[in-house]
């Protein structure tokens, strides 16, 4: 049956086989990128900006900032220099992605006294915690911090070795003229918040804020960490275009068959349904062959990020893209004149 279906349809089958392989690789790369994205940046987004204060005279600046600013969707980290731990204070406002929590909870929004001397620690830090009356405590610089949550992801990451303290406690450690990182849900929010930080600072204070370095357009596509995805995307688009041409040729080859069916008085819906059935058979065979060919790549290139659900997505995309390619040549060839095949 397989040989029979493939007869005369080799190019189309091969196109779908290759498209399946490409799509699988692209999906795996995207998935891996998403998983590694924050890990590679110490869990800051690519939009995060460093800043610090010079000549900050207002010790209550952050209380004032958080209570008065109308900005929302940002998070500020206060970096605590330490050779043993990666410690940062966290304060956020609004709906913003902070860090994934494996157990317990994260800090409350804003700055509050209730959050004083609390901590969220990574999975590896949990082993070094003290247990008091059924609660865990992290001790740093002779101060105990009650652990309210454990940060972590399914796979090991840098998060496992990090410690997050409530923002006010870290100000006690570093002072207000510290190193900070501003992050947020999008470039616009970060930019607005950066402006607000400068706005609310006393006149004599100098805010050293890193410049906005977000690339756009073609430069964005070819940034180093995005390059592999971009290349896979280009390869996929190339194969999609070639699949369009192959589908077009396949339908053109059926022109005579369509004409004969019309000579025999077959209704258009009968002709179209036969073509679609044929198309689905070839797509499915090409897809299955593509999956088989992808398996060595999975092991060879360690594309462990491919999931079973991705295979369903790949199949749907392969079928849908092919159907899109089918529409125009099918409509064109359905108008074939029967006389073309009579002579």
């Amino acid at each position, binding site marked *: 049956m397989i040989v029979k279906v493939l*007869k*005369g349809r080799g190019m189309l089958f091969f196109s779908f086989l290759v498209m399946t392989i490409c799509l699988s690789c692209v999906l795996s790369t995207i998935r891996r990128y998403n998983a590694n994205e924050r890990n590679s940046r110490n869990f800051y987004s690519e939009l995060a900006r460093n800043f610090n204060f010079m000549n900050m005279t207002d010790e209550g600046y952050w209380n004032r900032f958080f209570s008065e600013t109308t900005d929302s969707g940002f998070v500020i980290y206060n970096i605590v220099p330490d050779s043993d731990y990666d410690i940062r204070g966290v304060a956020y406002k609004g709906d913003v992605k902070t860090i994934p929590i494996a157990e317990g909870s994260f800090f409350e929004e804003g700055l509050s006294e209730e959050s004083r001397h609390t901590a969220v620690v990574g999975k590896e830090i949990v082993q070094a915690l003290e247990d008091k009356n059924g609660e865990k405590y992290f001790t740093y610089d002779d101060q105990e911090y009650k652990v309210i949550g454990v940060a972590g992801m399914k796979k090991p990451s840098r998060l496992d070795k990090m410690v997050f303290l409530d923002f006010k406690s870290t100000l006690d450690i570093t002072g207000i003229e510290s190193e900070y990182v501003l992050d947020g849900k999008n470039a616009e929010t970060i930019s607005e918040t950066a402006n607000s930080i400068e706005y609310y600072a006393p006149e004599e204070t100098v805010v050293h804020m890193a410049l906005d370095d977000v690339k756009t357009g073609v430069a964005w596509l070819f940034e180093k960490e995005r390059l592999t995805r971009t290349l896979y995307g280009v390869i996929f688009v190339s194969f999609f275009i070639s699949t369009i041409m192959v589908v077009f040729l396949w339908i053109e080859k059926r022109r*005579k*068959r369509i*004409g*004969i*069916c*019309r*000579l*025999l*008085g*077959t*209704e258009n819906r*009968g002709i179209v349904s036969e073509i679609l059935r044929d198309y689905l058979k070839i797509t499915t065979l090409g897809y299955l062959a593509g999956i088989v060919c992808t398996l060595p790549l999975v092991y060879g290139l360690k594309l462990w990020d491919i999931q079973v659900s991705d295979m369903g997505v790949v199949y749907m995309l392969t079928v849908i893209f092919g159907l899109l390619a089918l529409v125009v040549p099918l409509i064109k060839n359905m108008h074939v004149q*029967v*006389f073309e*095949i*009579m*002579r």
Partner: protein
Amino acid sequence: MIVMNILEIKDIKKTFGKKDAAVHALRGVTAEIQENTMTAIMGKSGSGKSTLLNILGGLMAADEGSFTYAGKPVDTSSNRKLRKYRRDQVGFVVQYFALIDDLNVFENVALSLRYQGISRREIKKRVKETLKLLGIESKIKAYPNELSGGQQQRVAIARAIVKKPKLILADEPTGALDVKTSAEVMDIFRQLADTGNTIVIVTHDPKVAEACDDVIVMEDGKVVEQVS
């Protein structure tokens, strides 16, 4: 014996193109074709014989005039109705066989029956019977490129008759065949005519016309002679 006309053609006209580029392919064709006969339509190129055949086969509608099939007017008001007439009543045989290269003999012949709501078992039975009738049942799994010209034409004839039409239209069916094979094909048509079919053949070949019961001679879009 009462002889019925299977086709009665009344003043059929057909023009292609418009204004100065108009070609009057048929200028008022009137003729009658008796059932269970072989009728040849002869004429030079451009005489309108293929156009007439295409109209009789429901491939196109006439601009004016009408024809009846088995005593009933053929409705040519829509493509769907033409398709239905063509599907149910007519078998076509063309000069270059018009077989599908990636289907084998069985599949090519079965194509006529595929979309008619007939069961697979019945299709298999009828295809085998038809191939046996035409003496090519041994080639049932062969592909067209494995067959000779005469065998391919037999397959084309099988495809035309498997749905048991009363009317078989053939456009230069021997045009691509040698003399011996042409004679074999004409013998097949004769058998079909003798067993209840009506064959209408468009041809240039006088020998084909000689083998027919009636000859309609066309010239310049009109019937100039009808000879029995």
